[in-house]
């Protein structure tokens, strides 16, 4: 028979298998990338065959898609959305704006590197990424989940001070609720 360690490993494999085939994306679009999601979800590219579906509220969702540039004002809402989500939760950075600022590199009101403020599991590059690229990003995320490497939520919990420090640097008037997960 199995010992405890082996048993929990097998349970993890089964859990990750289930998780990777039901990725519910919270319906929240920032920037211009949200326009790529309707074709991804509908019959032409049909993301549902990979188990990717839209979800109405952050508390029911698994994936937070950051679809483009984030202004400081939107970043506040994104952080609140992310912190309300239940684990397991993953973040996908979408488009070059989330990677290095993209065409908004000299803007007065947009952040330039998303992973300073939220733990990103997968980045999809492009401006804008086409639905094929979006689906390939999701498949990459599924791979990471099945290998147990998509640990963004864990990283966020462990390095919360570092993330908070960066967030407070751009959000000057800090009036955010504290969640205790």
């Amino acid at each position, binding site marked *: 028979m199995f010992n405890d360690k082996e048993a929990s490993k097998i349970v993890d494999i089964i859990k990750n298998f289930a998780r990777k085939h039901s990725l519910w994306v919270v319906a929240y679009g920032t920037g211009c990338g949200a326009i790529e999601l309707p074709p991804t979800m509908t019959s032409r590219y049909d993301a549902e065959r990979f188990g990717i579906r839209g979800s109405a509220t952050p508390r029911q969702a698994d994936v937070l898609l950051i679809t483009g540039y984030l202004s400081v004002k939107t970043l506040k809402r994104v952080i609140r959305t992310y912190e309300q989500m239940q684990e397991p939760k993953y973040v996908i950075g979408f488009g070059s704006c989330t990677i290095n*600022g993209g065409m908004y*590199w000299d803007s*007065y009101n947009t952040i330039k590197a998303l992973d300073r403020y939220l733990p990103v599991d997968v980045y999809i590059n492009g401006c804008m990424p086409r639905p094929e690229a979006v689906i390939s990003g999701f498949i990459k995320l599924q791979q990471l989940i099945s290998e147990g490497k998509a640990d963004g939520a864990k990283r966020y919990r462990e390095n919360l001070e570092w993330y908070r420090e*960066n967030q407070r640097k751009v*959000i000057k008037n800090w009036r955010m609720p504290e969640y205790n997960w």
Partner: protein
Amino acid sequence: MINMNKNLYNENQTIEEIKNTFHTAEIKLQRESRIIVKLRSDLIPPFLSYAKNYLAFNHLAHFSCVDWIEDNEFELVYLLYSYEKNIVVIAKTRISRDKAEFVTIKHLWRQAETYEREIHEMFGINFTGNDRLNEFILEDWDDIPPMRRDFNTIQFAKDNFYTRPGREDAQDVRETITKKSGEKIPDFAKEFSVRNLK
């Protein structure tokens, strides 16, 4: 270029009417169905009221601002449209940059209130009579208004937002194009080249 074959009856008639009422206005027919009227700042409220009530320019299509830092002035631009005549009248006026203040036109068009809030936030112009000039698009902004030309956007972005290394060798699009076509970069554009901004 104005196409002389076009019938400019409506435009010429409107120009004539404005000229007869506001003698100091500089009027220019930019092209078909587009008239630019430059006015003294104190004549703007009576002009807008006149255009709305007597010339049937019912629709305030846009209201914006230009920063002429060289002249130490702000230019306010009002775009009025007439559905009857199918003409846009662009009313322009200049106010001093040191005392950035103007009167509201909220009593003529209610949507002007929103435009004024935006201009107040982006340029720091105070509109007397508009009591809703509070925080609008920018949240928690404590610097000088960002659309003023003396606001250093690049320095601000550098100070506040983390820049990921790896963009240093990014090619300047303008230089790449000139290399291909052999065209020269004009001097005023060189100032804004990526290489000089660092």
